[in-house]
């Protein structure tokens, strides 16, 4: 089949810009061939429109047909009726338009009009997809194929990393798989440096696939560019992972802000949290060590009285702090600070994956991720401001990947944690988040609305779908597409880095060819590079 031929599906019969366009299917097109999420082009009189099918329905010209369903038994009559008196319609949401000569140069523009009556609706072909999403190149990373198509769907990575992004989906729908792919893309293109808080040790050395063998991690694919840090050296050794640094956290690195975030997981009261600030004020950086050493009742009651802390509150806090001190990677003092090491690697352009090994409980994850990120934020802010003041190139964009994001970004703590700040404003300082979560409704609305590009696998809870699509125009249209995704290997991407929403099948990851394609640099013959040469 000629891949550039358009398959005509039907004609426009009604519609509005707000509600979408209704098209009647041609007689020879079976309603069963059409799938929600398919991309179509509509050839208007003077411009072309690109859109996505978001609903399919059956219609009859006369309600009398429905009252004589026995007709269906007669193949002659049902053959005549199908496509004439009984027919299919589809609802298309237009997103982009390509019209006059000017816009041919600028590429497809957001839609502000609709095609006229009887304009033919056609299935988008490879050329259309390339026109809209661009061709694969150094910066345009192929993330997969649009549903039911063989053409590569590309994502503009420099644009992608410019804002915080989210990967969502129910458990087991392929979030980790997609994230691994995105990280590999960022690594391959060099669009940014990554810092991955790898809770389940999935990204660094070796990952797992459901119902299949292990897959290579980033370190195996890009050994010179990726360094693996670990919190649990023994576990890494057991798994045969060569690590670059073993992370230990000193008590003096932990700030009251870190404890605030852990309030829920450590089961602390509000008073206990505010007590941490007072204790830090009194003891400085050694506040945890000093607090834990307050064993003597007399001494401690004196301190508590002077700080106006209730005894029960203090007990509550102490129990919480003991949990932290019991974590094997924490100690009163450490020789080499993990933050400095991470920053050193990142500044050298190396991507860092921090494995948590056996410490998968959320306390360790939140503590370490928050602690490191806070310092990195400070450094990036400082560096960017200096660079702006001195008119020097800004630091390379940094993408921080966090899992179980709702623990960091829920409405109760989003305004206080560093992750909330990054999601909201760190774009200016070249650091962005890649949040991975299975329960997006748990994430603060404000943070969700600031995410640039969202990639979502199947979600079935109404609240989660609403929260992912919040703020999108044509929300109801995408809702039907999102709810109908297959439970595996299908995702919907929309937002800043793609010109229009599209449902896609992620590209292969795990076969020798896929490793080869991902790890070898792209040969780019596009005009961009020629311009760079000049």
């Amino acid at each position: 089949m000629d891949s550039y031929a358009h398959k005509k599906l039907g004609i426009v019969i009604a519609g509005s810009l707000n509600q979408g366009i209704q098209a009647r299917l041609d007689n020879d097109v079976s309603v069963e061939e059409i799938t929600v999420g398919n991309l179509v082009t509509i050839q208007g009189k003077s411009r072309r429109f690109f859109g996505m099918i978001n609903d399919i329905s059956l219609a009859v010209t006369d309600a009398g047909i429905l009252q004589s369903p026995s007709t269906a038994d007669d193949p002659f009559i049902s053959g005549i009726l199908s496509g004439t008196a009984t027919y299919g319609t589809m609802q298309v949401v237009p997103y982009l338009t390509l019209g006059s000569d000017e816009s041919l140069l600028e590429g497809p523009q957001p839609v502000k009009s609709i095609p006229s009556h009887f304009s033919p609706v056609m299935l988008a072909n490879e050329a259309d997809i390339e026109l809209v999403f661009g061709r694969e190149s150094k910066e345009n990373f192929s993330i997969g194929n649009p549903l039911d198509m063989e053409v590569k769907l590309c994502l503009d990575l420099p644009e992608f990393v410019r804002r915080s992004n989210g990967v969502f989906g129910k458990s087991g729908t392929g979030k980790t798989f997609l994230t691994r792919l995105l990280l590999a893309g960022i690594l391959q293109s060099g669009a940014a440096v990554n810092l991955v808080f790898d809770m389940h040790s999935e990204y660094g050395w070796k990952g797992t696939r459901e119902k299949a063998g292990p897959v290579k991690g980033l370190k195996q694919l890009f050994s010179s560019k990726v360094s693996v840090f670990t919190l649990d050296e023994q576990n890494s050794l057991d798994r045969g992972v060569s690590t670059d640094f073993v992370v230990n956290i000193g008590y003096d690195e932990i700030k009251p802000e870190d404890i605030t975030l852990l309030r829920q997981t450590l089961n602390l009261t509000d008073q206990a949290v505010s007590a941490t600030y007072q204790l830090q004020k009194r003891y400085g950086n050694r506040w945890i060590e000093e607090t834990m050493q307050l064993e003597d009742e007399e001494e401690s009651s004196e301190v508590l009285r002077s700080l106006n802390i209730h005894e029960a509150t203090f007990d509550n806090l102490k129990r919480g702090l003991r949990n932290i001190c019991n974590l094997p990677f924490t100690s009163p003092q450490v020789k080499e600070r993990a933050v400095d090491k991470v920053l050193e690697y990142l500044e050298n352009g190396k991507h860092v994956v921090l494995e948590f090994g056996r410490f998968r409980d959320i306390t360790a994850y939140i503590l370490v991720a928050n602690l490191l990120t806070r310092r990195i934020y400070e450094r990036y802010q400082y560096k960017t401001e200096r660079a702006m003041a001195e008119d020097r190139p800004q630091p390379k964009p940094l993408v921080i990947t966090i899992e179980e994001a709702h623990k960091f970004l829920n409405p109760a703590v989003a305004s206080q944690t560093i992750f909330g700040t990054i999601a909201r404003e760190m774009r200016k300082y070249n650091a962005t988040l890649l949040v991975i979560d299975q329960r997006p409704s748990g994430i603060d609305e404000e943070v969700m609305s600031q995410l640039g590009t969202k990639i979502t696998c199947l979600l079935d809870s109404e609240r989660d779908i609403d929260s992912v699509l919040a703020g999108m125009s044509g929300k109801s249209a995408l809702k039907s597409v999102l709810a109908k995704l297959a439970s595996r290997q299908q995702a919907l991407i929309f937002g800043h880095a793609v010109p229009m929403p599209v449902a896609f099948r992620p590209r292969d990851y795990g076969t020798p060819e896929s490793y080869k394609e991902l790890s070898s640099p792209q040969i780019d013959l596009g005009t961009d590079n020629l311009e760079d040469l000049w």
Partner: protein
Amino acid sequence: MEASDERIGEVIEASTGGFSAQCYQLYKLPALGELVKCRYQDVDILAVTCNGSTSSLEPGRRPIARGYEEASEEDLYNNNPQLNQLLRSEFSTIVVGFKRGESFYHYLPPQPVRLHSFVYRCSPDEVISFGESMEFLMLLSGVQCEVPIEELIAACLRVMGAFHSPESDFNMRAGRKLAEIYSGDYQRLRAILARLK
């Protein structure tokens, strides 16, 4: 007009939308729905037979029963040869298009046929060529005639369909056109389709 065309009657009443003709031979009526033609100037006007009737030559004179002692109906006519002269068979038609040169047009001709024009049966080739477009069904469906319209349409399609091979999509095309015409009247559509078998 070809020399081989079979002449069946003569026009005795004419209008743009249809004409009536008298058969040359008693009871030699074209079938209901059959395609017939008349020449007028340079066009062959094509029409569908919509009603046939046989009656007394004189309107005031009613036929009387004569066969009490006859063994069969054939004997009755043979023993009363005057009947062939006193009775006449007539049919009326609905004009559905015309043919000019080799082209067929599925709409009304500019002029009605003249009285006393000869009426011929259409040849199988003409029926097949005319049936390549189903637009005539639109004309047919809009007229008033003596027989129920669904009967007429179904009869016409059956007659025309007989000239097409069983593999042809004639019935399907006709059915789809009817489904378009009767998009708001499913019961009538179904009545016609049921009569196509």
